């Protein structure tokens, strides 16, 4: 009974779509979130679900190298990066995010609108012949990307911008695994390495900014003009 379900591709599709939706919801939740620590944890959760999606797809489509991707995601985005950042937060005792540039309700509305954009774009990719996974996931991926992007614009604290950037890359990851069942392995490795390094580099930058500016409010970085 369960096995049949577990072997049923439709079922897998459902699960994937469900988790993709969850990922999207978490992304929107991130938009509304003000507590940095919570922000980091939501990010971790989102990444976790992504890893799950990867694993599921790997299971149903027999794409073994996606397991590697899933594992890497777990390791890098669910464990390493959040730990790194939380320590950073503790060291810099940043407590609360000040008001975002666009207030929360409006941000949520905008996020919804961006989701719509994602679907509009993905629409043109929908081909009746194929399993629906393609354009659904692509729509979610584009939405994730856009919402993450919007969060970057919307936030003032350096660290939250970095988080937004990473969540934006989560969108890409989703697209990668759902559209093409992942990139060639070596490329995947390269990408993950890059993400890790990027996270560290940005972390270091944030730290140094904190050191020199006595704050991580990037909207104060306005010396260079013209």
């Amino acid at each position: 009974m369960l096995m049949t379900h577990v072997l049923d591709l439709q079922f897998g599709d459902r699960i994937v779509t469900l988790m993709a939706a969850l990922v999207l919801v978490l992304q929107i939740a991130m938009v509304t979130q003000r507590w940095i620590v919570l922000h980091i944890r939501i990010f971790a959760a989102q990444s976790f679900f992504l890893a799950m999606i990867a694993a599921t797809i790997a299971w149903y489509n027999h794409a073994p190298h996606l397991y590697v991707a899933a594992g890497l995601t777990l390791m890098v985005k669910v464990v390493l990066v959040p730990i790194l950042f939380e320590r950073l937060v503790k060291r810099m005792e940043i407590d609360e995010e000040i008001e975002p540039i666009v207030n929360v309700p409006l941000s949520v509305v905008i996020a919804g609108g961006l989701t719509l954009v994602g679907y509009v774009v993905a629409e043109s990719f929908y081909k009746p012949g194929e399993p629906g996974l393609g354009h659904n996931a692509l729509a979610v991926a584009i939405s994730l990307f856009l919402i993450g992007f919007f969060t970057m614009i919307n936030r003032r604290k350096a660290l939250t911008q970095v988080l937004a950037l990473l969540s934006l890359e989560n969108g890409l990851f989703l697209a990668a695994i759902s559209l093409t069942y992942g990139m060639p392995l070596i490329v995947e490795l390269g990408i993950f390495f890059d993400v890790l390094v990027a996270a560290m580099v940005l972390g270091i930058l944030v730290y140094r900014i904190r050191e020199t500016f006595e704050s991580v409010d990037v909207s104060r970085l306005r010396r260079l003009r013209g």
Partner: protein
Amino acid sequence: MLLLALLLVPIVTAAAAFLARRRAAMEAANLVGFGAVFLIAVALAARVLAAGTVSLANGFFYADALSALVVLLTASVALVCTTYTIGYLRNDQQSGALGDDASGKEQRSQLRMYYTLTPLFVFSMLFMVVANNLGVMWAAMEITTLVSVFLVTFYGKVTSLEAAWKYAIIGGVGVSMALFGTLVAYYAGRGLTGSEGLSGLNWSVLAQHAAQLDKTSMRLAFVLVLMGYGTKAGLAPMHTWKPDAYSEAPVPTTAILSTALLNCALYCLIRYYILTSRCLGSEYPGRLLLLFGLLSMGVSVPFVLVQKNFRRLLAYSTIDHAGIMAIALGIGGAMGSLGLMLHMVFHTIAKSLLFLCAGNVYQHFRTDLLSKIKGGVMRAMPLTGVVLFMAMLAITGMPPFSLFQSEFLIVRAAIAGGHVLTGVLFVLFGTGLFTGALLFVGDMVLGPRSDAPTAKRRPWRDGSLLALASVLVVIAFWVPTPLLELVRQAAHVVSGQ
């Protein structure tokens, strides 16, 4: 084999510089390393001229005339800038621009950082150019960002941190767009013959079957890639990081950023342009490129007209030239591509020369602000003054200097191709930039001798300046035949005709 060497030598150089104890050792390491890289690049160019394409590790590394040309330019810029750097950093060390601690330990670590990161930076660019796999190309591009961010923060000033942050964030967004584009392109290439597994992202493979690529996906892919790599190339409106980063990074780094890195970003664009135009016809990518190109030219004009800061002026000029090359690519065709390739060569020479001059001026007057320099550079430092003026005229497309030739080709291609409006706007913006640049440089270089003392000579610094200047002059009247041949073949690769 050449390709492998090309990538290994910089790594070794970086390691050597990292382990080196004394300043001289680091300098020597870099000098030797980049000399070797340059020689290898020349050899590679020769090989490509002879054999057409060179590839390694069953097509994981791949170099045709286009890559060879970009590699050659990158290597030459790296070599010249390193030679210059030696004089430049020594001057910094003595003038206490690196912080004057008694032990000089801090200074040494700073120098070590510079001499280690620069080879890595060059490595990542070379890697990007010779990688056949679009994903690897992307990864390399990401590395360039990460490495150069630290180079931007070299002086550790408040402003340089700000610049680094903007560079990192905008660059990060850019490369992630590029990544998105890359995987959409991969998606477009699914199920093509010979595209299984790793080679599915190989440019050469995709280019062969470009016609069967999924059209809608390629449209999306090109937009994303254009915006992604366009960010690194500094096309408006993704250009905003450029003036900040250029005005804060150490001058040799800026020179590399504004020439080699620009070329590499354009290189990626060109690769995708070829795929897209083979898949969808050149009209769709062409229009987008023209749009961004004209926007970049147009945006840079007002900033140049009212600019107060020399290096920011140069940054906007780079944005303008990125726009010019985008336009050339967008016009395409045999003439447009030839113009593009010539322009890439000529711009690399002139712009790096300009930044080196800017370095001399900055180290002598301790500022980039015209209001503080108050003219008279020609009197205070004759060599720099003359070269600076020449280079500025060259960069604004004034004959007899060579950029006029390439820009002439581009405008001619535009008007012959029916893009009359593009041609007119091109000329209009060009005039605006010329006006701004001339007014600025005229006020800076000419005029009575300012109160600042006469500059002391720095053989390494001024020597490399002079060498590059003579290249600028000579190439206006005589282009070496092999180089021209390489350029022609590269243009052939771009236009496919």
